[in-house]
């Protein structure tokens, strides 16, 4: 007897008994049912499995959960057998089609007669996601006649395979010049504009590091683009290009004082001094210098020169200010995350929780990311300065900063739809390597490419949500679900490394989108405290004191509310609730735990769930079916 409801396309492959539990492995999940609790983990969520103390499975998950004392087997051999099965099950897939998202989608379609319609209904994100590029152009008020143009130079990804096909660039830069520029940026990731502040016209652009090895100051055209960016909307705004040209000066101000200090420490110095430096600049009259935000530390940037990379030298870039944020690279972040996971798995041993937490540096890294975003948002909002953000490749730290800054600046990205657009355009379109970073890319076994970059960013969003509980349309459960499905491979959204790759494997057509679950219509993810219409620019506090460990994700065992009948009322539609709509619900909603899956939360007979897969799709399918009937 399979102890759970299987999803569409899910098949149980092994089913057996341990001393105290029923254990099952399907092509999607590991499920262990104890007398009064359940462990339910999607296979792709698991990072490693090992056998400890002869009879015990020890599972480490990618979202930082560690499952121990999992199951007691009567014999060593039995334990080994299950270990073998699990190890085989969680190995990297040989081809993308082996991922469960494909099977799931295929079966979902099979249920329905009219395939096209069903796909559209069930799996496709809304139009706001599909037509995001065009809609964003309009929403942000880009002047496509005089100032900007959409270049088709990357049609069919022929210029840069990790960029989207349509690129937004200054109108007077020709494709020929862009091609030139591309040869001086690593991976040909040229500077492209991704945000425009409607109020003052200041823009945010992103790119990869310059390649200086091609010979000193050869990067002329690239510089020219940056220079053009720095005056673009400004010239329109000022109305007098001539006076602007005349006032261009050569400013070189060393921003980073202590370059030799340890990375994390130098961060605070550099970020703060630049913050104060910025605030001194007068908004009126003087032309705004372009802010080039290099996410790396100065030392790391210089070190990259040896490998053919590099950073902008202010000497070559008139009218620019370069600020180094000192954000750690993916290897440090991965280490930090592994420490965090280890520390969290030690709870409830409280003796040295605080210093242990500090030694993971996780919150310190978050603090730096937030600071970088605040720097960008202040430059754009308060000073009307254009900003160019990059790190080394421009697909890890860059989207973290850019997307976070956009949330700070623009209330649209704090709505459910806007957030989807944000993730799609800044993370997926610009080639954040989800496949590699999450470790579900086929055949690759290189652990060095894995890193919870996106999870770290979601954590930062969670910090903002905590600080501004009334300014986000979605709630914490929304983010928690997003974390889960970044790794679960139930949806196709986060498969592959770039839009080019997803198109190649036709992932959009052959899998469901995660936004079909996290859709704006899903009341479970609505923040009841949301105040729509607030135009406020967020000014978060970034110091470590103010940051919280994301207990719902990292410490679900100790998070506030264990599932049970009491939690049910949260998920009931408001109509079915009695007039006793007390504040209790309001308060508890954001505390939703990661492991609660909505289906079992509604089913009072279901026992405690320890970790979740996502059966709500069952729900969803039924809903659709009902709708079709």
């Amino acid at each position, binding site marked *: 007897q399979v102890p759970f409801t299987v999803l569409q396309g899910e098949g149980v492959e092994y089913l057996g008994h341990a001393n105290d539990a029923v254990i099952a492995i399907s092509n999607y999940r590991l499920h262990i049912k104890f007398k009064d609790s359940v462990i339910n983990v999607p296979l792709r969520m698991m990072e490693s499995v090992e056998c400890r103390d002869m009879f015990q499975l020890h599972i480490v998950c990618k979202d930082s959960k560690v499952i121990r004392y999992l199951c007691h087997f009567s014999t060593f051999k039995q334990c080994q057998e299950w270990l073998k099965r699990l190890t085989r099950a969680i190995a990297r897939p040989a081809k993308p089609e082996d991922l469960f998202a494909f099977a799931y989608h295929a079966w979902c379609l099979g249920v329905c007669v009219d395939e096209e319609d069903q796909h559209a209904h069930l799996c496709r994100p809304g139009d706001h996601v599909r037509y995001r590029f065009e809609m964003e152009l309009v929403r942000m008020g880009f002047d496509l006649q005089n100032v900007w143009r959409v270049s088709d130079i990357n049609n069919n990804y022929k210029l840069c395979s990790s960029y989207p096909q349509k690129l937004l660039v200054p109108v007077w830069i020709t494709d020929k010049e862009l091609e030139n520029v591309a040869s001086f940026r690593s991976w040909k990731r040229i500077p492209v504009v991704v945000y425009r502040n409607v109020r003052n016209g200041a823009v945010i652009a992103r790119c990869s590091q310059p390649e200086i090895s091609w010979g000193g100051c050869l990067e002329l055209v690239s510089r020219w683009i940056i220079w053009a960016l720095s005056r673009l909307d400004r010239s329109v705004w000022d109305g007098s290009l001539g006076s602007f040209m005349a006032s261009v000066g050569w400013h070189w101000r060393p921003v980073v004082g202590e370059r030799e200090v340890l990375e994390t420490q130098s961060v605070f110095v550099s970020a703060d001094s630049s913050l104060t430096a910025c605030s001194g600049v007068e908004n009126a009259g003087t032309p705004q210098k372009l802010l080039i935000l290099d996410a790396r530390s100065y030392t790391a940037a210089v070190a990259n020169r040896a490998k053919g990379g590099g950073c902008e030298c202010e000497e070559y870039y008139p009218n620019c200010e370069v600020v180094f944020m000192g954000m750690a690279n993916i290897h440090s972040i991965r280490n930090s995350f592994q420490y965090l996971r280890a520390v969290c798995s030690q709870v409830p041993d409280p003796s040295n929780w605080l210093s242990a937490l500090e030694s993971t540096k996780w919150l310190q890294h978050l603090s730096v990311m937030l600071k970088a975003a605040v720097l960008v948002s202040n430059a754009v909002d308060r000073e009307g300065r254009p900003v160019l953000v990059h790190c080394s490749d421009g697909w890890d730290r860059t989207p973290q900063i850019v997307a976070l800054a956009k949330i700070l600046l623009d209330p649209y990205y704090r709505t459910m739809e806007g957030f989807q657009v944000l993730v799609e355009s800044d993370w997926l379109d610009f080639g954040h390597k989800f496949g590699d970073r999450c470790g579900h890319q086929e055949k690759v076994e290189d652990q060095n490419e894995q890193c919870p970059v996106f999870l770290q960013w979601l954590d930062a969003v969670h910090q903002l949500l905590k600080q*501004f509980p009334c*300014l986000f349309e979605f709630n914490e459960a929304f983010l928690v679900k997003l974390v889960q499905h970044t790794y679960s491979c139930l949806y196709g959204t986060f498969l592959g490394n770039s839009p080019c790759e997803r198109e190649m494997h036709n992932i959009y057509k052959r899998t469901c989108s995660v936004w079909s679950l996290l859709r704006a219509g899903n009341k479970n993810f609505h923040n*009841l405290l949301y105040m729509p219409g607030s135009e406020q620019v967020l000014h978060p506090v970034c110091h470590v004191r103010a940051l919280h460990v994301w207990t719902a994700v990292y410490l679900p065992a100790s998070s506030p509310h264990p599932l049970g009948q009491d939690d049910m009322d949260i998920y009931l539609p408001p109509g079915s609730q009695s007039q006793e709509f007390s*504040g209790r619900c309001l308060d508890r909603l954001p505390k939703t735990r990661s492991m609660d899956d909505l289906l079992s939360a509604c089913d009072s007979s279901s026992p405690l769930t320890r970790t979740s897969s996502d059966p709500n799709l069952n729900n969803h399918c039924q809903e659709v079916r009902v709708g079709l009937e």
Partner: protein
Amino acid sequence: EIHIKEPTEKEVNPRLLPGELLLCEASTVYKYIQEDGSNRGTYGKLICTNFKIAFLDDDSASDDNEPQFKNKIIGENDITLQCVDQIYGVYDEKKKLLTGQLKKYPEKLIIYCKDLRVFHFCLRYTKEEEVKRIVSGIIHHSQTPKLLKLLFLFSYASAAPNNAGKYRRNQTVMFDTLEDWRDELERTKGNVKYKAVTTNEGYRVSEKLPLYFVVPICVSEESILQYEGRGIIWCWSCHNGAALLKMSAFPKEQDDSTSQMQKAFLDGIYKTISNPPYELLKTDDLSSSLPSLQDIQTAYTRFKQLFLIDYSTDFWATDVKWFSLLESTNWLEIIRRVLKKAIEVAECLERQHTNVLLIEESATDLCCVISSLVQVMMDSYSRTKLGFQSLIQKEWVIGGHGFLDRCNHLHRSDKEEAPVFLLLLNCVWQLVQQYPPAFEFTETYLTVLSDSLYVPIFSTFFFNSQHQRDTNMSGESLKTQSGPFRFLTVWDWSVQFDLKGQAFLNNPLYAEKPKPDKSQRKTARFKHQRQLSLPLTQTKSSTKRGFFREETDNLIKNILGKRIGKFINSSDEPPNSFREFYDSWHSKPVDYHGLLLPRIDGPEIKVWAQRYLRWIPEAQLHGGGTIATAAKILDLMEEVQSLQVKMDEEHSQAI
């Protein structure tokens, strides 16, 4: 020109309370807005009265944005004399602690407050004479030992006799009458086995004990008199009949016969109280199972230092090491241990149906913390505002906690100082932030309450005992008109806040107790009891009896000051019984009106950010944080209510 000057002239006049006297003042003092090195600030007048130190801004424009939440007594730039923690002078960029007589006067004055504000005053532009007067005045009035009668409390009470007495007793239970104690006994169903006694009327038994208190029914008045009130005193009874009791330890006696007598006395008490109808008794010597007052004081001193920040650069510099700094203060660890102890006591009462006797040297410090916490956790009445205030009256104010000494209000002895009451508030805050719907009050309430410790117009926190308060009530020794003083109580929140401000003290999300008809509630309550009491006592009772004898002996040895070995704490239980109780409670859904156990794992014990970070500009969230949330929730609740009204109207119309 005259027209422009006039308003500023008006502005500079200090607002004085009745009985408040201006003692000294200095003009053209420069107050830094925030010490970020930018030297921004405002000029004004620094004054010192018999109530407060205040800075009066020359610039009237600052009054434009009145904060929503404002104290009527203490302004933004007012520091009551009791609120001053330490005063530093800056001489040639060097900080020096200022006490007593000064030879040289500083160019800058830094005042650290007990509510964690930090003021920087520059005296460089002030006349030398005025500097001398104001600095020595401030130091004299805020830092030197004082007589009780010189507290502002008395001048205020004699100057404004009409202010007092407005607060009617139908609100917080003050526990200064026999009826209050009888009502409490009845409320907790403790009146079967315990009685309120009048033996101490006129304080003939002890000046440390309250006028009225509750003892086991079997204790006779003679024995209370004989042992000066030492013996078991009742705190609270659990729904299953088990009671929380306290007792002060006997002092060490050299005399053998006295100690024999004491032993006999205690033996007698234990014998009677261990027989039915009384439950088994478990004792807990808090002086050995919890950190000492000295430890608590040291930890808090270190902890608060983390928030008294001079320069914003310090703030950022410490941020990297924040967690290890925090851990090294040990303050959160102390909170955890206290909460853990309270859970242990709750487990005995709730699950084992055992009476718990808390023992401490004077039974007025950690006893108060633990007994209050246990009641907050177990008695949902203590989680209402009135209930909590009554609890503070019962356990602390009437219970005889030495507020005067522990807060060092009179600067008599630093050795006596210990933030015991703050420790309780910190612990309660942990519960409030873990289970907000269970509390009728907010964290703001707790913060404001902690600030009120230093406002000497309320008598609540300015006496060591009921006796001290009563004997100082009579105005005889003062030249003013006869008749007893009538002090204000801190529980009259209208003295400090207008209605709008008071709204912030109430939790709009409080899950009020549903009020079904009475018969239903009774059965529900009964069921609840059954659920919670596990069939543990039945099987174990025989072994317990045996243990009890042993423990009694131990206890007596201990109380007589002959401590042999470590005192036994729940030694008959397997060590994981606590954990089991804790885990099993946490695995079930929370009943906001039932037993409430705090989570005490590492990440769960947090810093009370509102109290400790509120004055630090870097930590302020504009347009966010708890205040914005609270405002939004209030809006929502209003909307819900108006919709409810509408629905009711529609409904009645339909009928």
